[in-house]
């Protein structure tokens, strides 16, 4: 398995609270991604990073922010969690163009 660790693995939080999910990699890969997976929608890109402090929005970025201060860490923050953000969140990494994505084991987030 690629060295990708997501934390926490499970989280239950209340509507309106901020939440931060962490992705840590030991592969020194340049690209890091946050996806959410929901039934009927597949995997949808939230944000991605193409280097330290270089990030960009994906197709479902509203309500989320990210930061990458070190190559190995990519943080996803839900600024004020809503029930629509209940989902499974996957972090993925890629070394370069034409290189496959490798996924972490996911974080299951429930917003009540």
């Amino acid at each position: 398995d690629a060295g990708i660790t997501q934390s926490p693995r499970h989280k239950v939080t209340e509507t309106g609270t901020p939440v931060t999910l962490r992705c840590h990699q030991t592969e020194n890969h340049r690209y890091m991604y946050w996806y959410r997976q929901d039934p009927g929608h597949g995997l949808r890109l939230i944000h991605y990073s193409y280097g330290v402090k270089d990030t960009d929005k994906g197709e479902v970025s509203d309500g989320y922010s990210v930061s990458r201060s070190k190559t190995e860490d990519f943080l996803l923050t839900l600024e004020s969690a809503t029930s629509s953000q209940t989902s499974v969140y996957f972090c993925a990494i890629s070394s370069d163009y034409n290189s496959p994505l490798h996924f972490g084991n996911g974080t299951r987030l429930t917003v009540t």
Partner: protein
Amino acid sequence: EDKVVQSPLSLVVHEGDTVTLNCSYEVTNFRSLLWYKQEKKAPTFLFMLTSSGIEKKSGRLSSILDKKELFSILNITATQTGDSAIYLCAVEGLNTGNQFYFGTGTSLTVIP
């Protein structure tokens, strides 16, 4: 709008059958097409195809890409119960950085 469409949505077969899964796409600045297998946790990488007509093969699984007609197929021969999973197709496009667009997947169930 970039999109990836997989068919069928779900499939139930008997052990020993051969299955064909389909993936069609419309993605700006296509770079590559990838297949993943997802059981209970994270998607795991199967194949990456970058050139037309090239077949990638691994054991009972094979895949081919048609860049002219914008589709790919994944074949699984002599299916086993361990092949039961969701199979995801992803297409890599180039914008600011790498972006991977996923289909919603095909759910395959192999019954003994």
